[in-house]
Structures are given as structure tokens and as C-alpha cells.
């Protein structure tokens, strides 16, 4: 019974994928209902699973997938507090995003295919969450990568979209290489890839650290950590609901989930956790500064996602395991909300440039209110969701003695508040800046605004589950061993203060005319550095792409000149032969008869002479 309903959580979206691949084209707009029904069934079953886990269930269902001699690959469904939490988040956000997409994707010619991809993405993500061993995790990991690729490149007629899809796929593949090597090392040293067996084993710290860091490379790629974060901003070429689901709430969190899931392994080599913390901190800070200068609404949110993922890694790295997982949980809601809100805005004004928007507050009340709720959650203002989880992470850095990480975390929180409210003030307040959409802007239809309201509710309340008011119930549920930190008034006060300072600064700069608009010169070298995203794309272009092209060109030359030269030479020799021999072919039948006669006579003489026939 248990195995049945747990497998149905994954199987129903797969079934929907199969149905939509076959009938999606014919059904057109009706395809959405199949996929939404499937994900709602998954959501219902996931909630049941969560309730069971809350009731003390902690189980693992295993199937044998393949047996080769003594080597068995099992496929299974691991249900514990972490996976149950993720199941509900994935299914819930997926359901809301799919409902939102009815309105957003209305009239698209590949509507059925869009929902097919969303279904299969959800199934892969659920499979990843369920994974009790690394083989299954790797399969699902690549599965979400493939559907992310297909959805980023959904509008592949646009060259930038197809290139962004390729970039996302290839950049994450770099990280996956590390993941694959980690799995090979694990199998060589431990002889198994089952998580519970691995976690019970003893490893030399150096080996455990090596494996963990290699595994973390996979997470760096998937969760867009420095230095492999470059694909995520480009992935915004995909439809906005896809950005909300895949590139904000679920798939990019897979890297964080991997680290959280493998936490016992990381703990065996503590150096790896320091590495995670440092990468997370660099990512959080760097992405937040880039977000300060971005002017595309989705790019701002993309960099903010990278920054928040950096926070999660920072939390996991400094030992605040529950706080990292908690931030993953709250971030999924408020970032999905912000992206869907951005989608609603883009749907209305047909532009992504924030300085072409403005004054939307009057025209789009629901979108504005929910977006501001999401913004407050992101900026870390109590009692919104982001505050509790981010505060926990910063507190974790403080209590574990990572002073530098703590201060960078605080500074990043300041930037976060500033860029979030820069976005809000520019987009929703002030005067409309471009006239071309002035009269037509209106609130989005109910299928789009209702998911916003539901996510807004969660962005407002999800954080309370882990707040001190309920004795950090969430952390106790996810990580019973990791005691939640006591409230530290200094850290909490500082965290609130920087959030408010950031919001005030944004208001002074963009909400009023108090600060002059040229307070920072556009020619300032630091501004240029940040606005050009630290020249990371250029760095990759000159360091990786140009040498690769040079090598490829050399090999092309070699292939065309040497390899093809040999082949063409052989053909040419035969052609020369042929042009001589073909003159024997005169067209006179009697000549041929004569040749036959001559040949026959030669054969007869030869057989008499050399074969000795008498």
C-alpha cells in the first residue's frame, strides 16, 4: 500500500508526459488539464506522505533495477523528513506554476509539448528527491538537466534562447563531471552507492573530503555557484513560469539538496564543509552585487536566486544544516512568487526592462501586493519567510566562529534589501516611463493571480514554521540532531537593521528624488566591473572558448588536409587508372567478342603450360 502510493507520486506525472507527447499536439490548450491533474494527484499524495512522516514514519521502498552478477542496482523511494518536505515543495510549486502557465502560455503553438516537459521535469525532480542511492540520484539529476535544457530552449526559434539552453547544459555538465568522478571514487572505495550504507562507513578524512568536494562540483554546476553560475542568468530566456519552477524554486535547489542529503559524508571530511561555506559566501556576495546593477527584471531575480543559493550553501557549510534546508524551503515559495509576479508584469507590459516600467501599482493591484510580499521576504524583513531562514544562516556563521563569512553575509543582506526594493520602486511606483503600453496594462487573469495569492500566503507564513515562536519546529523536524540556535538579539537586530537600511536607501534613490540619480558615476571602475558581471563571461570566452576554437580549427585543418587528402588521393589514383582503361570500351560488340577470344586463347595456352594439362 505504502509502496503503491509513493510510486504513484512519481508515476502519475510520467504517465501525463507520455499522454501529452502522444496527444499534446491534437489537444492543444486542453493539454494543460492533464498535466495539472497529474501534478495535483502527486501533490495530494505528497501531502499524505508528509503527514505520515510527521506521524513518525521513516521508510525506504526498494526495487531491483538491474542485476549483473553480484552487482545490484536498486531503485527506490526514500521517505524521511527531508525528502517529504522537498516532495511537497516541488509538487506544490509545480502545481501553482502549471496553473499560472494556463494564462501565461495562452495561445502558444507548442502548448502540449510545454506541459509534457513540465510534467516530466516534475517527475524527474520527485525521483531525485526520493533517491536512496547515488545511481538513481545521478539519473534523476541528468533528467532534470535535460528537461531544463528543453524548457530554456522552448522558444528555440530565438537564437539567444537556443544558445542559452546549450550554455546551461554544457556548463552544468562541467560540474557533473566532478559528481561522476566522486561516484566512481565512492564505488571503488566503498563498493556500494547506497546512501545509508555509505553514511555508516568509516572513511579517512582526506578521502571523504576529496569525494565530498568532487560531489560538490556537481552542486556548483546545478545550483549555479561561483564559478559556474554563468548559465543561470542566461537561462532566463525560457518562459517565465519555467524560470520560476526550474531556475528558482526546484532544480537549482537540487545542488543544495544533494549537499544536504550527503551531509554525513561531508561531515566525515570537515575541510569540504569549509570549502562549501567559502564558495557559498563568494557566490552570495558576488551575485548580490551584480543584481544591484542589472536592469532586466528577470536578470535581477536570477542573480538574487544565485545569491540566495549561495546563502544556503553558506548555511550548510558553516554547520547550520537545518538553517540551510529551511532557507531552501522558504526560498522556493518567495522566489517562485517573485518570478511568477515578474511573469505577470511581463505579460502585461511586454517588456523586461525595468526602466521601461513604472507606476504599475495603480493598474495591477494583486501582482503588486504579492510581489511586495515576495520582496519583503527576500529582503529579510520580519515576519516574512526569508527573514527567519536567512537570519538562522547568519546566526550559524556567527556562532560557529566564521567571522568573515558572518560580516559578508550581513553586507549581502544589505545589498539584497537594496536591489529588491530598487526593483519594486522602479517597477511599481513612480510614473510610467514608456508610453507604448500606457493604456493597455491591466491585471492578469485569475489563473495567474490566484497562484500568486497562494504563494504570497506561503511567502508570508512559511517562515513562521521555523521561527522561535514555535520553538523552531521546522528545524527540529528536518534535523532532530542539530539543535536550533538560541535567538541572538545582536544578530537578529543587525539583520533587521541592514534590511531596513537597504530598503530606505532604495527608497531614497528610486522612490524619491532625495539622492541624485548620478550618485554613482557610470564610469566608476567598480560600477563597470559589477555591471559587466565581473567579466566572468568574457573570462570564459577568452580562456576557454577561444582556445577550444583554436584546437577545433587545427583539428579541422588536419582532417581536411591530411585525412581527406589520403582518401582523395586513393580515389584520384583509381580515377586515373579508369580514364585509361575506359578506352577499351569501344562500343563495338565485335571488339568485345575478339577480346573474349584472345582471352580464351591465352587461358588455354596458360593452362597447358603451367597447369600441365595434356
Amino acid at each position, binding site marked *: 500500500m505504502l509502496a503503491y502510493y509513493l510510486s504513484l507520486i512519481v508515476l502519475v506525472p510520467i504517465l501525463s508526459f507520455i499522454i501529452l507527447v502522444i496527444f499534446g499536439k491534437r489537444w492543444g490548450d486542453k493539454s494543460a488539464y492533464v498535466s495539472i491533474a497529474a501534478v495535483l494527484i502527486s501533490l495530494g499524495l505528497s501531502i499524505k506522505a508528509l503527514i505520515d512522516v510527521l506521524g513518525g514514519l521513516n521508510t525506504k521502498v526498494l526495487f531491483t533495477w538491474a542485476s549483473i552478477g553480484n552487482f545490484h542496482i536498486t531503485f527506490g523511494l526514500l521517505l524521511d523528513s527531508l525528502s517529504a518536505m522537498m516532495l511537497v515543495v516541488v509538487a506544490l510549486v509545480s502545481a501553482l506554476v502549471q496553473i499560472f502557465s494556463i494564462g501565461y502560455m495562452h495561445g502558444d503553438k507548442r502548448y502540449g509539448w510545454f506541459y509534457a516537459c513540465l510534467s516530466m521535469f516534475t517527475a524527474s525532480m520527485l525521483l531525485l528527491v526520493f533517491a536512496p542511492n547515488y545511481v538513481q540520484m545521478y539519473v534523476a539529476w541528468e533528467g532534470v538537466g535535460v528537461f531544463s535544457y528543453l524548457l530554456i530552449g522552448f522558444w528555440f526559434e530565438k537564437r539567444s534562447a537556443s544558445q542559452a539552453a546549450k550554455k546551461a547544459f554544457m556548463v552544468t555538465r562541467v560540474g557533473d563531471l566532478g559528481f561522476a568522478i566522486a561516484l566512481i571514487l565512492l564505488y571503488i572505495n566503498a563498493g556500494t552507492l547506497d546512501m545509508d550504507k555509505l553514511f555508516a562507513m568509516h572513511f579517512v578524512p582526506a578521502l571523504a573530503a576529496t569525494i565530498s568536494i568532487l560531489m560538490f562540483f556537481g552542486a556548483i554546476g546545478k545550483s549555479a555557484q561561483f564559478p559556474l553560475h554563468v548559465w543561470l542568468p542566461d537561462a532566463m530566456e525560457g518562459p517565465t513560469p519555467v524560470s520560476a519552477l526550474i531556475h528558482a524554486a526546484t532544480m537549482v535547489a537540487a545542488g543544495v539538496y544533494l549537499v544536504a542529503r550527503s551531509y554525513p559524508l561531508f561531515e566525515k571530511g570537515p575541510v569540504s564543509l569549509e570549502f562549501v561555506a567559502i564558495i557559498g559566501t563568494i557566490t552570495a556576495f558576488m551575485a548580490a552585487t551584480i543584481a544591484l546593477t542589472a536592469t532586466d527584471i528577470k536578470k535581477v531575480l536570477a542573480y538574487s536566486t544565485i545569491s540566495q543559493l549561495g546563502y544556503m550553501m553558506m548555511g550548510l557549510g558553516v554547520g547550520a544544516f537545518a538553517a540551510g534546508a529551511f532557507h531552501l524551503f522558504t526560498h522556493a515559495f518567495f522566489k517562485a512568487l517573485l518570478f511568477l509576479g515578474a511573469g505577470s508584469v511581463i505579460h502585461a507590459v511586454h517588456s523586461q526592462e525595468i526602466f521601461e516600467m513604472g507606476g504599475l501599482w495603480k493598474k495591477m493591484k494583486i501582482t503588486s501586493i504579492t510581489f511586495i510580499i515576495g520582496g519583503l521576504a527576500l529582503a529579510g524583513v520580519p515576519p516574512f519567510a526569508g527573514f527567519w531562514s536567512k537570519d538562522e544562516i547568519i546566526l550559524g556563521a556567527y556562532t560557529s566562529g566564521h567571522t568573515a563569512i558572518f560580516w559578508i553575509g550581513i553586507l549581502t543582506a544589505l545589498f539584497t534589501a537594496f536591489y529588491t526594493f530598487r526593483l519594486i520602486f522602479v517597477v511599481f511606483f513612480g510614473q510610467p516611463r514608456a508610453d507604448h503600453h500606457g493604456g493597455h496594462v491591466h491585471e492578469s487573469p485569475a489563473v495567474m493571480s490566484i497562484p500568486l495569492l497562494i504563494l504570497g500566503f506561503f511567502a508570508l507564513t512559511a517562515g513562521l514554521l521555523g521561527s522561535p515562536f514555535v520553538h523552531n519546529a521546522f528545524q527540529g523536524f528536518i534535523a532532530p540532531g542539530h539543535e536550533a540556535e538560541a535567538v541572538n538579539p545582536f544578530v537578529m537586530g543587525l539583520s533587521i537593521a541592514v534590511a531596513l537600511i537597504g530598503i530606505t536607501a532604495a527608497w531614497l534613490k528610486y522612490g524619491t528624488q532625495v539622492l541624485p540619480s548620478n550618485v554613482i558615476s557610470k564610469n566608476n571602475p567598480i560600477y563597470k566591473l559589477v555591471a559587466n558581471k565581473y567579466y566572468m563571461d568574457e573570462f570564459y570566452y577568452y580562456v576557454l572558448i577561444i582556445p577550444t576554437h583554436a584546437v577545433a580549427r587545427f583539428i579541422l585543418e588536419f582532417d581536411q588536409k591530411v585525412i581527406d587528402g589520403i582518401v582523395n588521393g586513393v580515389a584520384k589514383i583509381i580515377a586515373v587508372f579508369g580514364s585509361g582503361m575506359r578506352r577499351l570500351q569501344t562500343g563495338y560488340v565485335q571488339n568485345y567478342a575478339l577480346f573474349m*577470344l584472345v582471352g580464351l586463347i591465352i587461358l588455354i595456352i596458360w593452362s597447358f603450360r603451367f597447369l600441365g594439362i595434356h
Partner: protein
Amino acid sequence: MVIPLSWYLIVSAILFGIGLIGVLLRQNAVTILFSVEIMLNAANINLVAFSRYITPSAISGQMFALFVMAIAASEVAVGLAIVLTIYRNIQSVDIDKINIFKW
């Protein structure tokens, strides 16, 4: 008097030579077909003569000659059909005019 085997072979060789020269030198396609028939019949004479002189109790050579005749008949049927087609195309049976199968 008994005619020795070699006489038959000589006749056969002469006939074969006549046929061969006809095939190689004549220009009329119908004449060439006739010459091929002569060569076949030269072979038939050989077959029958060898059979009669070497294995008189069996008639395998004679049987073989009958088969050759049947095949020659069908060959002539096909050959004449081809010649007719050529004639329809170029209004001639001169094979020197049909040298289009070449480089």
C-alpha cells in the same frame, strides 16, 4: 569402311572456325546470329561424335546435343527480338552503327 573420329573433329573445327570468323567480321546482325548457330552446331557434332566413339552404350552426348538445340532456338528468339528492336530504332541492322555502349 569406318570413318575415324578425327574426321568428325576436323569437320567440327572447320565449322567452328567459319562461325567464329562470321561473328568477328560480318556487319549484319542477322548474319552474326547465323554464325553463332553454326558454332553451336560445331559443338554439337563434337558432342555426338565423342559419345558415339568413346561411350557407345550411353547416349549422354546425344541428349546434350538436344539440349543445346533447344537453347539455341530460344537464344535465336531473343537475339532476333533484339535485332528487331535495333532495326526499329536506327532503321538498320548494321552493328557498326550501334556503338553507343562506350565511354
